[in-house]
């Protein structure tokens, strides 16, 4: 079995409890950009956590699906952090977030065209070369019908993985949210996802849009993982076996013990699969 079972996204409020937590299989994930700083206590905390637990760096701003090449300063900052922290996993998104000189703090969609495929593969290769390791690419949440797709998202991700050797990060909450928002089958998506490329799974909470209600779900990361997302997770694990699985929580942060209990639920599910095999 993987040494890593279920992990937690780590926030500054929980450093002390996270540092000493003895839960088996526990690991942590942080947004890389929050630690791309010159020095100070933030980096010192992260190094202390890394000395005690496996750590994953999750990037949000490389803009791999942007028409422009990844920002050299951001890439150099990530490479320096990877060198310093030696994370267990490094991941990014199938999305863009830069336009000209500006950073737009979101994970934005694009038409999955032949041109986009070539561009993204070049960017992934450039990042992997700079880091000296492979990264995992995450399926984003969708809120729009976009014209001009030439590939399904699954085929597109599988092709990027085939061409660049990168891994994939299956975010099951994003699958649920996107399926609801764009009228696809979440079960069909999870069943067709290339499991042999998946190196990490994300689980998170979402919220109904305040105006449009359940017809528009928002990937808000501010609530516990919802029942349909747990069911999709079960479905994936039954087919594909266990993967390091993260409970993502970025807002409305509950006490550490509450997050850990949610993590334990995923941990027990993964441990049961291993015991049964």
């Amino acid at each position, binding site marked *: 079995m993987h040494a890593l079972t279920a992990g937690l996204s780590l926030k500054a409020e929980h450093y002390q409890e996270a540092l000493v937590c003895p839960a088996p299989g526990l690991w942590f994930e942080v947004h890389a950009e929050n630690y*791309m700083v010159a*020095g100070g206590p933030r980096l010192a905390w992260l190094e202390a956590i890394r000395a005690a637990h496996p750590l994953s760096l999750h990037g949000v701003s490389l803009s791999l699906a942007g028409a422009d090449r990844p920002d050299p300063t951001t890439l150099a*900052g990530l490479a320096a952090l990877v060198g310093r922290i030696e994370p267990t996993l490094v991941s990014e998104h199938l999305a863009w977030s830069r336009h000209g000189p500006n950073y737009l*703090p*979101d994970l*934005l969609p694009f038409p999955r065209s032949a041109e986009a495929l070539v561009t993204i593969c070049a960017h992934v290769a450039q990042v992997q070369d700079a880091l000296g390791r492979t990264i995992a690419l995450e399926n984003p949440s969708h809120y729009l019908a976009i014209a001009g797709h030439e590939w399904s998202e699954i085929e597109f991700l599988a092709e990027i993985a085939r061409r660049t050797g990168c891994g994939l990060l299956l975010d099951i909450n994003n699958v649920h949210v996107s399926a609801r928002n764009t009228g696809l089958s979440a079960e069909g998506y999870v069943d067709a996802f290339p499991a042999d490329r998946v190196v990490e799974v994300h689980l998170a909470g979402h919220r109904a849009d305040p105006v449009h209600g359940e017809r528009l779900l928002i990937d808000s990361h501010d609530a516990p993982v919802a029942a349909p997302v747990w069911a999709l997770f079960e479905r994936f694990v039954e087919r594909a076996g266990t993967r390091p699985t993260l409970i993502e929580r970025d807002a409305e942060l509950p006490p550490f013990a509450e997050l850990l209990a949610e993590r334990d639920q995923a941990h027990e599910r993964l441990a049961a699969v291993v015991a049964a095999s």
Partner: protein
Amino acid sequence: MPPSSTLADFQRAFAAALLGEATSPAAQALAMQPGFAVYRNTVLCGCIDALAANYPTVATLVGAEWFEAAAGRFARAHLPRDGSLAVYGKGFAEFLEALEPESGLAYLGGVARLDRAWTEAHVAADAPVLTAASLAAMSPARLLDATLVPHPATRWASSPELPIFTIWRRHREQAPLDAELEWHGEGGLLTRPGAVVVWRALDAGAATFLDECARGRPFGVAVERAFPAGPEAGIATWLPALVAAGAFTRQEGPSP
């Protein structure tokens, strides 16, 4: 990127629609969908949340509603340039100063400069601290020609007329806010001699001295220029205090 890139065209139209300039038919078609507001909100909230995290005293002083409106205006005019939002908001103090007719708070810009000082000090590079002992080991003649180099985490901000440091520190230290304020100029010094950022009052002479040190002026010149600025306390008081606070990382030149 080829000029005919459809990916670049799509992203140009999408970014324009995000910022409320959906002029092309493609951008208008995107912006009409209910889900487009999710992206608009996420981008704007991401900027506003980062500003609130980096300027917490300002956010407390003006309240959530005013802060969100002001931060939103700032963000639209000055989008982040860097994926790391830890120091997003350079120029927010000057932006708030220009908004004084609306805020009615003359000290808001000065308080914002102290928030900025804390944010920058917190993430600045690690470096050794110049100790009083190593300074004392220098002969007076050598000291006059040496330059004291500010530590990478040392920041300071002053106002000639307003008690910005007292207002700022009362919020940071959660001290009673209703105590009487003395309305005169003040400065604050922020340093990171150990694991955390610490602060202390900075008089005008010491602030001028630090300005001169940061410009690379030798100790003797910096002291001379500091004297007219701050007659209220002599160098014998504030120099040991600056060194004890860890304001400097090392001295440079002259050769022994």
